[in-house]
């Protein structure tokens, strides 16, 4: 009898370990097949390079159907009112597999720029970057990598940084080693009706002001949607993000930002535990509502402060705390899969959550707060507000990590956080773009 018991325990353990391992999914799914396209000649490729390099204000650059292999970066230099148009995401493909130097495949700088209806693949660094632009619209742009081995993929797929008035609409971003759609150090942003899958992070808003993220699908990434504020940047902090009507599901992809088995490096994204729906890190003024947050095996929404990274926090005009957050009317569905064990945060949730070992969480709060405001988190000093209908049935965990690993505390008590708050964004003027 006893023997049987031991056997069954062993069988159970084997089952558990198999289960845990098999949950770490990976995908190389493609949304189009560029091998079927006509290969553009070297002359045709050069013509496009020259058209972009020598563009004048007001130009429309039309790129015919075909597969274009570039050996040099495609750079638009500080022009106004430019449109670059392909014939469709599966018809016009710009490949940067042959690029031997440079940070990104396409770089657009200027004002009132529109790029639409094309795909960009296999850039060694970032797919498409825009910097210092006022008025930049990406519409039906698909950026991806075709490597079977995803460790060779580039950093960001769609990458506007230090821009104003950014619209990302009906785009697809996949298989990037960091964030698929990454908006950094920018103001006035719409990311809508887009799809991000197979990335480490699906959509990321970092050190930005006034952003709305809606109507998107973020699936099969390690983390679905991220709002971060990192220290020490020229745009020192950001606030005002609304995340609504998104589909954030099955973000259970392995985190391939660093090689398997290697520890996270200094890039914060390397710490993200697979199975994360939405993560806030040092985020200010964020409203998350009407989203479908399903089957993310570790956590639906995580509210974190920069303390959890363990990195230095000394930076001017920047706060490590997440504050003024309003989470309401979201639809949660957990999965039977076990939370991640590959990253520290995954382990924290797996082991120490308030609902029992191995339980997926819907909402967690790491519990750091500004002690200049209050001596206890019970007063909700950072104004973190939850208004979820069935909060009783949700897995909510409030951690207390002040004493470090040796004394991690966790509670289910959400009562201090039942409140409402206001988050203001204003992006109406972008809807005409």
């Amino acid at each position, binding site marked *: 009898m006893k023997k049987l018991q031991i056997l069954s325990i062993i069988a159970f353990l084997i089952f558990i370990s198999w289960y845990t391992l098999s949950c770490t999914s990976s995908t190389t799914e493609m949304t189009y097949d560029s091998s079927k396209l006509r290969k553009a000649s070297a002359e045709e490729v*050069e013509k496009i*390079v*020259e058209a*972009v*390099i*020598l563009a004048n204000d007001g130009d429309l650059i039309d790129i015919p159907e075909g597969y274009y292999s570039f*050996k*040099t*970066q495609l*750079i*638009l*230099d*500080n022009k106004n009112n430019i449109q670059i148009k392909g014939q469709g995401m599966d018809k016009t493909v710009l490949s940067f597999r042959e*690029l*031997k*130097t*440079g*940070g990104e495949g396409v*770089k657009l*700088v200027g004002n009132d720029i529109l790029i639409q209806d094309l795909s960009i693949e296999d*850039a*060694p*660094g*970032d797919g498409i970057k825009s*910097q*210092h632009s006022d008025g930049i619209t990406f519409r039906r742009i698909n950026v991806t990598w075709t490597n079977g081995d995803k*460790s060779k993929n*580039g*950093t*960001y797929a769609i*990458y506007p*940084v*230090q821009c104003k008035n950014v619209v990302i609409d009906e785009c697809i971003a996949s298989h990037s*080693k*960091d964030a698929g759609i*990454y908006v*950094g*150090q920018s103001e006035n942003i719409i990311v809508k009706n887009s799809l991000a899958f197979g990335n480490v992070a699906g959509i990321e808003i970092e050190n930005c002001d006034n952003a709305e993220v809606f109507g998107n699908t973020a699936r099969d990434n390690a983390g679905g949607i991220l709002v971060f504020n*990192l220290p*020490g*940047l*020229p745009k020192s902090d950001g606030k005002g993000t609304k995340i609504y009507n998104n589909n954030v599901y099955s973000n259970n992809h392995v985190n391939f*930002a*660093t*090689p398997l088995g*290697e*520890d996270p*490096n*200094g*890039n*914060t994204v*390397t710490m993200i535990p697979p199975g994360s729906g939405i993560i806030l890190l040092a985020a200010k003024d964020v409203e998350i509502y009407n989203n479908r947050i399903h089957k993310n095996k570790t956590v639906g929404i995580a509210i974190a402060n920069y303390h959890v*990274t363990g*990195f*230095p926090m*000394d*930076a001017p005009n920047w706060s490590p705390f997440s504050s003024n957050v309003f989470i309401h009317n979201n639809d949660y569905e957990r999965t039977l899969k076990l939370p991640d064990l590959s990253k520290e945060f995954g382990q924290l949730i797996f082991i120490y959550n308030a609902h029992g070992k191995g339980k997926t969480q819907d909402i967690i709060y790491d519990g750091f707060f500004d002690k200049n405001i209050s001596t206890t988190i019970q007063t909700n000093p950072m104004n973190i507000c939850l208004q979820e209908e069935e909060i009783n049935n949700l897995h909510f965990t409030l951690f207390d990590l002040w004493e470090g690993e040796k004394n991690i505390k966790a509670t289910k008590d959400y009562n201090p956080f039942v409140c409402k708050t206001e988050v203001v964004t204003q992006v109406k003027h972008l809807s005409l773009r």
Partner: protein
Amino acid sequence: MRKKSLLKTLFYSLILFSILECTSKEKEHIELWDASLISDIDLPYKNINAIDLNEIPFDNLSDYGFFQGLIRNLDPVEGVLLYEPASSLFTDYAFKSRFIWLPKGNSITIQNDVEGTFDFPDNTILIKNFYYPVDFSQPEGIRRILETRLLVKQRGTWEAYPYIWKDDQSDAQYKVAGAEIKVHWKDYNGDQVMINYLVPNKNQCKSCHNIHEQLVPIGVKAKYLNHTIVHKEESENQLLKWAISGKLSNYSKEKRYPSMVNYQDTSQPLELRARAYLDINCAHCHRAEAPGSTSGLFLTYEEMDPMKLGILKTPVAAGFGAGSFKFDIVPGKSDQSILTYRMGTNLVGAAMPELGRVSVHQEGLELIKKWIDEM
């Protein structure tokens, strides 16, 4: 004399032969440049003072009239002035020669900022030639010029015009879209080296020459020129020389201008050498006013904030450029610093600087490693 050149030819063809022998195994036929391709076509004389500046860019480098005699000798005409910055950007071990031309009667004024930036008159032309001696131990010997980059200030703004040299070295042609050129040389150790040299496309110039999204020169500032150079038996401080030749209008002998050391000058303190290296190789981009500002890593010679210099600073958008490391610089530990990792890799997307090299600058890397290790 003739015998000697015959011997030389024999020697080079032997080297070429041995290279071909090695590479033929790959079945890929690699056409190598050799000195026999050089031809002595003498082009008609152009008077630089009579060219129509509004027609710039010209199709050929020879259309400008910068040089007299065979153009490949890069012998400047009167008014085209050679200059050398204190420290020089690494570009795959290419040798460089630089000249400046100003329209007659015009001059530069030095600004009062920390770097001593210059205010240039319209139609200033900066000329930078990139070449490889066939044998690095004989820098004055046979050489192959690959490209000449012009920066021209037209109606208040700078424009970049890249010219690629013909194999026969008889002239160079304007090329917007960049190029990839196989180049080989014998290095200081006597080893044959071959690389695919990448000529940037016109707009890639601005990846480095960029302040507030305006194209600007890099090496022509007081801090880079405030030192003595020897040229044609003359030895003089460059700023003074420019002032004497009428190119600098507000130079004052009494005033102290900023200056930077030559990172190769081992008599200088390690700190200054390392900072000079980072300045000329990185700070054109890694400064608050330039594209690399996204990283928050600022590497100008004048930067004092340890975090902005990368000390225990986490990366932002480094992607796999961070390797397996947490901080840009870990004092005392160059082997755990992202800075040296990115300098030491050729992986596109991780390699820094992003442009201008397909090989690692071993000497520069050693310098920065030493600096970090001694922190």
